[in-house]
């Protein structure tokens, strides 16, 4: 069923354009890289503030609230450009182990970030466990990036 979804994506006009165009893939990939940079900055700062490594004078909740709009925008740009990249060769990605692992890690990273955002918003004095969880969640995002880079080599 999931495979059919990927097949359908590749057969849409957008998918056909991404497959046949010389510069389509390169341009969208660059947008994906810009989104990665933007999200990377927001994720690193939000998580390090949560872990108490930087911006200790401010509450992690205030830092994270201040990054939410920008970070969400970057994530949306990454997902839209990512879907376009996949549409160029959907079955190749569908069968790629690194791609599957990346999607799994991405889902975990998004879920853990939302959970942490809520937990930090509800406390004035984050517990050591919550601060440690922020570091783990940051590691999860890093692994998403590494898995993404590996896709390009396979």
């Amino acid at each position, binding site marked *: 069923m999931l495979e059919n979804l990927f097949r359908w994506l590749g057969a849409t006009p957008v998918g056909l354009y991404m497959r046949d165009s010389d510069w389509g893939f390169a341009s969208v990939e*660059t947008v994906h890289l810009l989104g990665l*940079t933007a999200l*990377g*900055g*927001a994720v690193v700062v939000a998580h390090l503030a949560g872990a108490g490594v930087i911006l200790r004078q401010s509450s992690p909740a*205030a*830092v994270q609230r*201040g*990054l939410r709009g920008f970070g969400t925008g970057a994530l949306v740009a990454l997902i839209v450009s990512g879907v376009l990249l996949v549409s160029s060769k959907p079955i190749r990605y569908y069968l790629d182990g690194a791609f599957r692992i990346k999607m799994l890690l991405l889902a975990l990273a998004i879920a853990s970030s939302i959970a942490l955002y809520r937990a930090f918003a509800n406390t004035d004095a984050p517990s050591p466990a919550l601060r440690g969880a922020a570091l783990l969640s940051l590691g999860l995002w890093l692994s998403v990036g590494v898995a993404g880079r590996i896709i390009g080599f396979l």
Partner: protein
Amino acid sequence: MNLLVDFCQWLNDLPPSQTLAESEWAFPIVESVHVLALGLVAGTVALVDLRVLGLALGDIRLTAVARRLLPLTWGGFAVMALTGGALFASEAVKLSHNPLFLLKLVLLLLAGLNAWVFHATVYRRVAVWEQAPVAPAQARVAAITSLATWTAIIIAGRFIAYVH
């Protein structure tokens, strides 16, 4: 000019450059670290720019944002420069003919110059305008220039691989 060509050739022929160029795994790994470090540099720079423009981290003082993020920016920059230098050495001759690589170098200089001018002028008086609802025009122009330059650096960097 000849000296520059000779230098690139010499760099290219160094044993470590050859090892990096020929290794199946070292190049991709160094390249991945380069991209992640770039994300840290441009990402933290962009957050300071967005704070100047009032588009992110509105509840945190600009000086606090700038002071705390700068070590991350410099740490990332050190990794980016080291990995970038190694990547360049492995293909120095080829890259010295690549227009996008040269453009990227110019843009990096521009980004550095813009940051230096910002810190040497309007940021010196930051205590005066930090609490104001809108940053001075010069600071906003510097922030927009920085965002545009880093965007262009990333685009040029990605397209180095597509141009021969």
